[in-house]
């Protein structure tokens, strides 16, 4: 577990630097076990920062999400750095963004948090419903310890752990300026057993499975907006003239949307699982993303978001590249 005092001390140092504009971390949420993103602009604000297994958000998204207004005449744009706290998975988003040259390594200060896993908040809230006053979650000795309403409950780690953490290959951030704790060794991997089972099903069966899921989609685009890799300034989905994707919500357009999104993330998705976490319709989007991730690994021996110096998969070519699947 990250020492909270050390975290705040380092945060205060970083935000006091002249070349740092803002620090993005976590703070307690508004109810129950929730935590939420915190945007710190001065050392006097660091006391609200936390890191616990409730800190599920991938803050790397905010690096590219900022909407910049035109700079008024006579003023210089603010080119100071943004500091961001990242878990292992989140750090891979930074790596991939930088691999794609979304911004330079010198534009961010990365505070790495070696991570032992975060909770699936939906599981927590299903297990302990109706908690309003702020509770706390800690991971101690292989168990989540939840303190709330004057009670303390222990739950085996695997019962509340987020699925992505149970498959995590990189618990320690792959890029950082400062690491806030000792490195955490890999404690899990993805065996793709569920994806392989899905691959083996008949076409008809697979369609039945996805048809039900996609038909629930309300096209709120939370999966796109939360995704650290969906940072196009002008998204194809928002285009009206020409309309590449109709705004109508029906099974045909919903399917087209999810297929398009999955393809746009092929060789880019870093497996943070945020899309699936935020989906109000509970569409298992990571099954699509993991299928592509598995294929990209098997076909091209490429793992997105692991090497800042690497070239993006779709920007490289080798005569040895497999192409037997091309019709």
């Amino acid at each position: 577990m990250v020492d909270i005092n050390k975290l705040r001390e380092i945060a205060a140092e970083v935000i006091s630097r002249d070349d740092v504009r803002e620090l993005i971390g976590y703070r307690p949420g508004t109810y129950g076990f929730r935590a939420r993103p915190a945007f710190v602009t001065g050392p006097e604000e660091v006391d609200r920062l936390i890191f616990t297994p409730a800190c599920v958000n991938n803050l790397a998204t905010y690096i590219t999400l900022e909407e910049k207004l035109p700079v008024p005449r006579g003023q210089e744009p603010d080119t100071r750095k943004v500091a961001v706290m990242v878990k292992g998975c989140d750090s891979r988003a930074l790596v991939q963004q930088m691999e794609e040259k979304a911004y330079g390594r010198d534009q961010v200060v990365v505070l790495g948090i070696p991570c032992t896993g975060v909770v699936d908040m939906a599981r927590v809230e299903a297990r302990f419903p109706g908690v309003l006053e702020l509770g706390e979650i800690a991971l101690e000795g292989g168990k989540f310890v939840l303190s709330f309403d004057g009670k303390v409950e222990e739950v085996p780690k695997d019962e509340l752990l987020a699925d992505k953490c149970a498959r995590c290959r990189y618990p320690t951030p792959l890029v950082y300026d400062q690491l806030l704790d000792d490195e955490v060794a890999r404690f899990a991997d993805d065996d793709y057993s569920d994806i392989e089972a899905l691959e083996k099903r008949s076409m008809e069966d697979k369609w039945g499975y996805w048809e039900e899921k996609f038909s629930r989609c309300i096209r709120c685009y939370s999966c796109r907006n939360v995704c650290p890799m969906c940072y196009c300034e002008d998204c194809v989905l928002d285009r009206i003239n020409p309309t590449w994707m109709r705004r109508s919500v029906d099974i045909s357009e919903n399917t087209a949307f999810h297929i398009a999104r999955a393809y746009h993330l092929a060789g880019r998705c870093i497996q943070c699982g945020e899309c699936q976490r935020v989906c109000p319709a509970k569409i298992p989007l990571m099954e699509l993303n993991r299928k592509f991730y598995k294929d990209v690994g098997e076909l091209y021996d490429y793992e997105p978001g692991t090497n800042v110096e690497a070239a993006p998969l779709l920007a490289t070519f080798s005569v040895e590249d497999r192409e037997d699947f091309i019709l």
Partner: protein
Amino acid sequence: MAVKKLSKEKIGEALKELSKFRLIAPARSDEVVIFKEIADPEEAYLDYGNSTVPPKKVVFPQTETLFRFMVGNPELEEKNVEEEGTTVIFGLRPCDARAMAIVEKLFSWDYDDPYFLKRRELTTLVGMACVEPPSVNCFCPSVGGGPFGKEGLDLLLTDMGDYYLVQSLTDKGKKLEETLASQLEDAAGGDEKKAEGMAAEAEGKIRRSIKTEGIPEKLPGLWENDLWKKVSAACLGCGICTFLCPTCHCFDIQDEVEELGDGRRCRMWDSCMFSEYSLHASGHNPRPTRRERTRNRISHKYSYYPSRFDVIACVGCGRCINLCPVNIDILDILEQVVDA
């Protein structure tokens, strides 16, 4: 006329009777509860908290065709809502019914929206009182509703254990009672009184609240206040809070052209949290960042709507709080408005 009751044993029979109409009820799709057209009474899932997507979509579909146009044919094929037929929404929550009554004020204001109003006319709302609050973030009493609220409903069912107490509230409700004559029985004399006690108890279980007094008048003066930047900093700009809101009613109208130039004009939900919602053809955007969009969402619900229609356009269902990916909490924002 005596108050009626519906034995839980007869619920299947009652739903079967109602399925001669277009019957919409809560149902499960994986672990998500949605309102959908029910063919088999077994599909109905009445022991639920609240649905993810509010039943507003029944009277105000997310996408609807207004008319179709065909190449070489000057006639338009207009939508006839009447064809959808008499509809019953069974088991919706009082907040969601009240939301329909609130939104109706807009759809019947300067222009009578024929689609929405026709559907409202064709639809009978059978509510299910919230004996237990469906969510920790429910706050309906703060905005003028209640867990046993009747506004907008035609019938209200209350779970009394082995049976539902059936209170008819409108002529449409009475008509539906007649349809169900062979499934309903007379309720015991004290049941209505008992339900009143349950309503008070249910209201006592709702733990979140906000004092709304003064907020509508105060909001316009906070236009440039720093709070908007703070409360919107984490916003991702997705449509969860608006699409899942039972009172949000913004729509866009687009032409969708199919092969060979035939096509349709349709309207679909839009969200003021999307960046292109307020984007002008010139490229100018009067709400250029999430700060302005968040300010608009809150101001519309808590200031513009009440100043025009005398009612806050929020029913306290808590969906936007429960499902916001970054824990933006409308009550937290309103508290900051109060303190500002």
